[in-house]
């Protein structure tokens, strides 16, 4: 997994959730270039090419960010806020994937500029279906803004 060119940034603190998500994405062949950040701070460093990721460049931002809300250090909402506040990163699609269906989280998430909000279904079949739809939609169906650098390789991967 190369951190230089990443299709999906999965921000997920829970090992099990991360593994299940990767399993589902792998099945749909969407897991070629995935980076998993385990907390909000790591996610921000990755996106803004800071800390351990200074070698990364803004030339290759992730094409999709799957963001959990309950995260250690910096929570998901804060990550979302900083992303969407910055001109360099605000066009990256962010899909909130969380256990919570709290209305205030929904309102706040969309208010901060989230592109989609998904409650992780308990049933694994449904979960898999959801992950598949999200991955296909944002990486294949959706047309990103020009210069967002969506590579043809990932499309081929589907």
């Amino acid at each position, binding site marked *: 997994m190369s951190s230089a060119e990443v299709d999906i940034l999965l921000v997920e603190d829970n090992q099990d*959730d991360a593994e299940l998500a990767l399993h589902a994405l792998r099945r749909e062949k969407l897991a070629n270039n995935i980076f998993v950040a385990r907390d909000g701070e790591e996610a921000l460093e990755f996106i803004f090419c800071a800390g351990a990721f200074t070698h990364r460049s803004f030339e290759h931002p992730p094409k999709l960010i799957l963001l959990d809300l309950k995260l250690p250090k910096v929570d998901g909402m804060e990550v979302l806020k900083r992303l969407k506040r910055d001109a360099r990163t605000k066009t990256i699609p962010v899909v909130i994937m969380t256990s919570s269906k709290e209305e205030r989280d929904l309102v706040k998430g969309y208010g901060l500029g989230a592109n989609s909000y998904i409650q*992780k279904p308990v049933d694994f079949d449904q979960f898999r279906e959801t992950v598949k739809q999200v991955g296909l939609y944002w990486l294949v169906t959706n047309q990103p803004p020009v210069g967002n650098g969506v590579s043809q390789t990932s499309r081929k991967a589907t």
Partner: protein
Amino acid sequence: MLPNETPFHSPGKQRATAIEALLRLKVITGFVVAALLTSFMGFLSWRSTRLAADDADWVAHTYAVLGTLDATLRHTADVETAARGFALTGEEPLLAPFDSALPLIGSDLDTLRHLTADNPTQQQRLDALEPQISAALAFSKRAVTQRRQTRAAPPPGTFQESEQLMETVRATIQDMQAAETGLLDQRTGKAKAAKPLTKFITLIGAIFGVGFLVVAWFAINREIGVNARAREEISALNAELEQRVEQRTTALQSSEREVHELNDELEKRVMQRTAQLQAANQELEAFTYSVSHDLRAPLRHISGFSKILAEEFGSTLDPEAQRYLQRIQESTTRMGVLVDDLLNLARLGRKQLRCQVTGLDSVVQEVISDLKPESDGRQVEWKVSNLPFVECDPSLIKQVFQNLLSNALKYTRPRASTIIEVNQTNADGQPVVFVRDNGVGFSMKYADKLFGVFQRLHRSEDFEGTGVGLATVQRIIQKHGGRVWVEAELDKGATFYFTIGIPDQTQSKSQAAAAGDQS
């Protein structure tokens, strides 16, 4: 002052007025009596003075009469004496008194006539006196004339007649003098007799005056005393009144303070309760959130990994192990539904209603459409008609129909032909919506348990479910100010009734016309 209380000032004021009136009457009476008494005394005094003046007049008059009588007698005597002397001596100088006295006698008599004009007796005597004097004077004149003629002394005894005449004159005058003196005495005596009475009356008057003054003094003193007492009484009453007003004011103030304190206390308690409620709400919210987030995560993992296990390693497991994996899957799914239902029910408690006029018909149609997968392959007749427009939260009311209709569908599963009716009726003039099915029903003795959380009347092998659905229905209907109840019979079916808000009559009619029986 309260309306049923006697006004304090009134008796004092009335009394003061009465006392003043009495005092005025007494003063007026006293003044009148004093005026009368003074007038009477004045009259007496005036009368006494008048009488004294009268007496003095009378005395003067009497002396004038007596003097004139004396003068008359003296003049007459002078004339007689002079005439006699001249006649005896022939000396002219002796005639001087004769000449001077004679002319006076006429005026003397005139004066007498005038002075005694009011006394007929004296006038009579005067009538007698005048000829006597005239006779005496005529005799004297004659004697003088004779002497001049004869130039000789008259014979002795000539003047005896003259002396007799004079005697008569003297006697008459003395009579008159006596009568006049007697009259004077009589008058003076009368005046004297009247004086003691006057004195007596004056004395009595003086005594009365002094007595009256004394009485007035005491009366006024007494009045002053009474007045002072009345004033004291009034001021005492006023003081009492003021004291009572003060007492009332103090009582009012203290009760007001009490009310304030009670209010403050109440407010404090309300604030405490509110704070407690807010804390409880926040706790519940936190709980709900963590259940939602933290409880669902491990469930998801169990579901996910067991699924992967079954899919990727299923072929290496014996059938028994595969069956267990299947059971794990099912339990996980059920628990997921249960958690979701519970969370939904919990959220209802604090959810704000977003009410709008909603046509129940379209809501029901939507739910029926959602339930299509469950009714597939079954013969189901939906009889939806006559549903009203109501003011409600559409998303919540949809949940109600979701629960009721899926229940109806579930408990009619054993029936070859299912009929589910959604309609409106009336109970006590209030529109009631009902959902009727021809399912397995239940015994009414368990009806009261039906709306409790986790209360189930059927075994889950026969009919799946969490026991939260009807509790949710009840919570939503109650939140809308409505009521939900059920009528059922074992093996005959069940009918769920509910009321909701106040329906929009005009629109419900048009919808009733538009909606027909549907199957």
